[in-house]
């Protein structure tokens, strides 16, 4: 946690003294750690003099921010309209059944976190699943297992 807090302080430093920057700050924390740990919220509150309640309110309002730790691999299943009409719900079902978790949660062994997203801008490849930034396009439910197996 020591090293982490140093990073946190560096990020906070970028915004100190500016107005209306809480969302930007939290986004930076989110992209650094993939989630926003409670200890970090306390730190931000202390350094930026913002009540923790306000920070929690923002962090829980926005989809891009997570208050729970994430797994080693993050799966994004696109459920944008274009992917939806090309069978994305079946893909999500399959991933959920395979990992035995629901969208928005993480497997007990911390191997995968599963999230749904809206349009990734590559509808031509739909339905699309992105794992750790790798795009898998035009997938069918039968392909799900093989894709997941690639990520240990």
């Amino acid at each position, binding site marked *: 946690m020591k090293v982490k807090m140093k990073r946190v302080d560096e990020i906070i430093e970028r915004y100190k003294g500016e*107005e*209306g*920057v*809480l*969302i*930007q700050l*939290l*986004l930076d924390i989110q*992209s650094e750690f993939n989630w926003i740990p409670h200890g970090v919220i306390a730190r931000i509150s202390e350094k930026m003099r913002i009540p923790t309640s306000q920070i929690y*309110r*923002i962090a829980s*309002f*926005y*989809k*891009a*921010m997570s208050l729970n730790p994430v797994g080693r691999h993050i799966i994004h299943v696109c*459920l*944008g*309209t*274009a992917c*939806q*009409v*090309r069978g994305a719900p*079946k893909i999500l*079902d*399959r991933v959920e*059944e*395979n990992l035995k978790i629901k969208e928005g949660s993480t497997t007990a062994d911390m191997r995968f976190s599963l999230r749904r*997203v*809206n*349009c*990734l*801008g*590559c*509808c*031509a*490849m*739909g339905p*699309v699943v992105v794992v750790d930034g790798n*795009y898998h*396009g035009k997938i*069918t*439910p*039968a392909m799900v*297992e093989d894709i997941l197996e690639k990520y240990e």
Partner: protein
Amino acid sequence: MPRLNSKEDLKALRRKIIGVRDLNKPYITLCSGTACHATGSDAVAAAIQKELEKQCLTGEVGVRRTGCHGFCERGPIIIIYPGEICYLNVTPEDVPEIISKTIKGREIIERLLYADPNTGEQMVHEQDIPFYKYQTRLVFSGNLWVDPTNIEDYIALGGYRALAKVLHEMTPEEVLEEVKRANLRGRGGGGFPAGRKWETTRDASGEPKYVIVNCDEGDPGAYMDRSIMEGNPHRVLEGLTIAAYAIGATQGFVYVRQEYPLAVSNLAIALEQAKEYGLLGEDILGSGFEFDVKVHRGAGAFVSGESSALMNAIEGKVGEPRPKYVHTSEAGIWDKPSNLNNVETLANVPLIIEKGADWFGSIGTEGSKGTKIFSLVGTVNNTGLVEVPMGTTLRDIIYKIGGGIRGGKRFKGVQTGGPSGGIIPEQYLDSPVDFDELTKLGSMMGSGGMIAIDEDTCIVDLARYFVDFLCDESCGKCVPCREGLKRMREILEDIVAGRGKEGDIELLKEIAVVMKEASLCALGTTAANPTLSTIRYFRDEYEAHIKEKRCPALVCKDLISYYIDPEKCIACLKCLKNCPEGAIEGEKRVIHVIEQSKCVKCGICYDVCPPKVGAVKKISGRPVPPSLPEAERAIRKGKKKGGGSD
């Protein structure tokens, strides 16, 4: 690069850039938009670099990586100059051949060209491909030419000329007048005239004034704003700066989604370069006009794209709407007059200034001028971004440009306007697309999402999808929207699960009326549109679900069963091996049977059964036929066996 201090400086720079560019020098333009990135443009770029080095050509061949070309269906796309040869679906393995044959030998590789699916005729140039041929690319055209990380590419195309004209030859009032006369309507959803909005902010009391670009793009099926921002950010910045001048603002914001990393980074580079060249900041182009732009990343909430919510977010607060009796154009960010426009709206502004309101007015329909970019997606053959004059018919867009419905399926309808829009059925395919026509049809323009659906899409399930989306995205501040959406979702979930009751349709309509009348922001007031429009045009599908417990499109999980047709099954074991639940029983030469109690309806058996055989069926509204008696399941002689015993 020294900063540009006058209109003449800009002109001279442009001449210089064009002057040193040798038009005969071979150039490879590689699309690196989001979709092409996903299909491997990075690997292609690396292969090009490697091959050029290997063949000692790095100095002689230019490479440019651009934003989205629009025809994402066939990416990665490269265009080779001179000759404008367009290659599609390029892989790293194709690269050595492209360099040796096309670059060195000026020889065309036919395999990489576009071939007409009907006639097989091959096309060398992008503009001959039907997908492009029927488009009018004005706003989007720069994407083909510009490396978004190099401001000089944009300047070479005449970029910032409109800004120079405005700052040195026009008063703010004249700019305002020109935009008003062009009748440029907002591309972000409402279609409100941009000139009038600018005027309100200009006339409002309070200083400073702000101008903002909305690149939140909340519609879950649209990606044109992202592609403009990624591929040609300077055009948006130029438009924004012109708006600032007309309005009298000195501070601008770009609100862009964090989930668009390429847009965020290209925008940051563009801002940096614009400042360096004296096109942003103090004393722009030596005119004395000062304007600065800050980037605010949005954190993915649909409702935050609404104007007052967006302004809350810029202030660092939770992005939910404010009460509507004050307009943001008069009291927006920190209660100062703030003008918000969509990305595409602002990208039109430099064109209007350069070519004039009359020119702009000559394109489009009576009430909707100019072009509109649509993201044509769903079950069409040619998915991508399409720019057409307002008033183009749906049929032209879907069939001429989109190449019709894939897999020979039947067209069922087209969804426009995103979660606030509706679904337009086949009988209106010849309607011209503009703001007012779409509204008349019970849908709307929205931001330009256009999702074609075929016979395999269940209309009720699609309505449920939008309500579910909005239910998650409603900020919950006002009761009609929050509770109305929840009730609608419950009812629609019941209908698709086979628990629909007589009277549900009427109840949906009743809730819709209240939401429309009493919600605080447009998320709530338009939320019922997808449901209402589908009830209007596809009532029979609702009734089939409710009365017969049947899903005509064979989609709704609780209303369908998978079944193996014993007449067709060849006992190949494919489905059996792939079924994740072990629900299929059979063996070699024994017709397979699905044990319905174990089946989770994942559809894998349906997908893996060889298309020629097609033994797995989906059935709805009737019971699954009883399976054959054990004795009759054996297939003799490896040949197909009928049911009867000799």
